[in-house]
């Protein structure tokens, strides 16, 4: 009697990270599109992947999905090491890369039938619910060539849902959507996350990302330069204090010599005080005390924290100066 060694066990979909990359690199001749990326996307959240045009966002997504090969580094999706177990990982994923394009001579439903056929048998039963969920049920039997860009985006999301995915990767999902469509997309992403799924989306619409995502990574020139929860990242950003007072010039003179004021900008109705990142909140009370003791009537003090957009611009601008 002969015995055969059992095949090596395939790791199940567990682990903390939905996406994990280490030193991931992709080159196109001399151009390094993805440069040693260390990316950790936690499970069960909406994760934004931000960067200027040409930063390598789409290339990283293409590498993760196996649409193009990596030159160096390791990666795993849903705990599955890829490319070794890519088919198992992709079975639990859905993705839109670049603009969603389909066979124009087929209807939306027929396109989904083609994609469902390549998935597990149960995917065929999900075509109707997926179309319903993205609001395309009424137009599902129209030819895709007659769809608007926004409708194709929705159809792309419906295609992602065919596999009942644990992880969705959406490349610029808000493109082509009108304000109402963007709101619906945001709500849908929120509902997917509420179901315990992970959504990774790349976008240049920072405002939308801030409203939609829990965490972000900033990529520039192929490198991830920041990543983490939005709240934590913005907490580390500089903020400003708006001061409404009677004599802004005198107030500026009083605050100009302090150590914690990075900049003081008087205006007709008051002044703006730049505070460095990590400044203690007690400083606000100290500003008030200094101004009152200096004879300045203070009407209002307001902290203005950086938005994701201003923080993004701050980060990328600094990088631009460094170059």
């Amino acid at each position, binding site marked *: 009697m002969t015995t055969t060694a059992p095949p090596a066990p395939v790791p199940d979909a567990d682990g903390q990270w939905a996406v994990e990359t280490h030193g991931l690199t992709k080159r196109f001749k001399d151009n390094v599109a993805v440069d040693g990326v260390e990316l950790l996307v936690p499970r069960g959240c909406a994760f934004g992947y931000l960067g200027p045009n040409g930063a390598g966002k789409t290339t990283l997504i293409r590498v993760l999905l196996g649409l193009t090969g990596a030159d160096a580094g390791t990666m795993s999706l849903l705990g599955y090491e890829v490319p070794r177990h890519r*088919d198992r990982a992709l079975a639990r994923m859905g993705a839109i890369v670049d603009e969603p394009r389909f066979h124009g001579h087929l209807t939306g439903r*027929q396109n989904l039938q083609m994609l469902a056929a390549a*998935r*597990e048998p149960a995917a065929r039963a999900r075509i109707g619910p997926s179309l319903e969920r993205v609001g395309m049920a009424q137009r599902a039997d129209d030819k895709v060539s007659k769809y608007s860009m926004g409708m194709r985006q929705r159809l792309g999301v419906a295609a992602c849902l065919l596999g009942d995915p644990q992880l969705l990767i959406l490349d610029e999902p808000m493109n082509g959507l009108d304000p109402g469509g963007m709101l619906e997309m945001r709500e849908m992403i929120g509902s997917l996350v509420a179901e315990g799924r992970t959504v990774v989306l790349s976008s240049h619409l920072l405002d939308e990302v801030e409203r939609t995502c829990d965490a972000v990574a900033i990529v520039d020139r192929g490198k991830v330069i920041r990543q983490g929860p939005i709240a934590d990242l913005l907490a580390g950003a500089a903020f400003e204090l708006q001061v409404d007072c009677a004599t802004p010039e005198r107030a500026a003179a009083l605050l100009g010599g302090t150590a914690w004021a990075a900049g003081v900008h008087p205006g007709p109705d008051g002044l703006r005080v730049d505070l460095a990142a990590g400044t203690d909140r007690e400083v606000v009370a100290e500003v008030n005390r200094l101004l009152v003791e200096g004879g300045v009537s203070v009407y209002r003090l307001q902290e203005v924290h950086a938005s994701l957009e201003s923080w993004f611009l701050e980060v990328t601008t600094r990088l631009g100066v460094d170059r």
Partner: protein
Amino acid sequence: MTTTAVTVAPDGGPDPRVTDDRAPDHRGSWVPNGAMIATRFMELRRRRGLMAALILVNIGIPVVFLTVRLVAHAVAPHSYGPAGGYDLFTSMVAGVLFVFGFIVAATLGCTAGSVDLTEGMFRHLVVTGRSRLALYLARIPAGLAIIVPLVAVGFAFVCAVCVLAAPTQLEFQGVPVPVGLSQPAFETWAAGHPDEVICNFGFDIGPNSALLPVVNSVPCGGGNGPSIQKGGPGAPATSQVTQAQVEDAARQIARSNYADYARRFLSPSVSLMVKSGLWIELYAAIGFLVGLGLSSLMGQRTVPVILMIVLEIVLTPLLSHSPIAHLLNVQRSLVGIAVTHLEPGGLPSVFGNSQNGGPRVPGVTESTTVAICVIVGWIVVWTALGAWRMVTRDA
């Protein structure tokens, strides 16, 4: 690079709200499933413009041609011969269906091999996790399920017309002759119609032949024998020729023509139709597979279609006309020439040439083994190249 610790991560284990009890579905297997083949068939079949063009070329041309002949024969039967018949069948199969079937199949193959890429569907399919090889192989049965019936319909129409509208009597060299005679029966028939045979059948006799005085004794009113030498200086007196000699001469002439006669039928036999049908289906299948592989390799449709048409209507006829000493193996490696080697007997050679007005014969010869190897090689190599490119291509 600054990396901030991520704190929104859950506890690390699989989220209980997302169920993942799905069983492995073998989507890494290279074998396509039935649904993939069915949906690919649907995708190709619903290309209305392409389908209309393919039907027009492969079915429309024979239909129009034969319909015109049918109408012309019905209107003026003495001016226009029957629309069907054996000769027309062989001409249509070797001259039209064989070539157009290949071009149509190649066009469909080029479409099947490239549209996912050009229309942006390829990456959607890759992201499903399904084996790229399976995605490629699903196109083969789907495409063949279209091209085989398409070729069959055109062929069936030609068969139907050639059988149903076949002439009622065989005309051999302008003489009505009973069909399907054995050689003795043919000679016996000739002995019964010596004047028609001697005056119309082709034969070649020398000036000193014993037959010469006999044939010269027959009064012909413009017979069409190609080499008949009647009368002339020193011709023997016709009064010495007996009826038995005339009949014997007719038998001899009939004997020399029997090989040509034996190839003439009123309508194609069932056996010939079946063999011819399988033969053009084989060539169409090859055209589809080569087109599929070539377009997958090149990632586009237009240039591969042009290349396939050039191969079929320029390169193959050019290189098959006659052997070229230094290019003989190149000539033999052309799939068109290899397939014509398997052509059913009774059909004129598609790419051959005609000698002395007889049926076309192959200009380049090769053994059946070599022909089969060439055909298998074309199928395997182009399929492998197309599949390899599909597997390695950036999506």
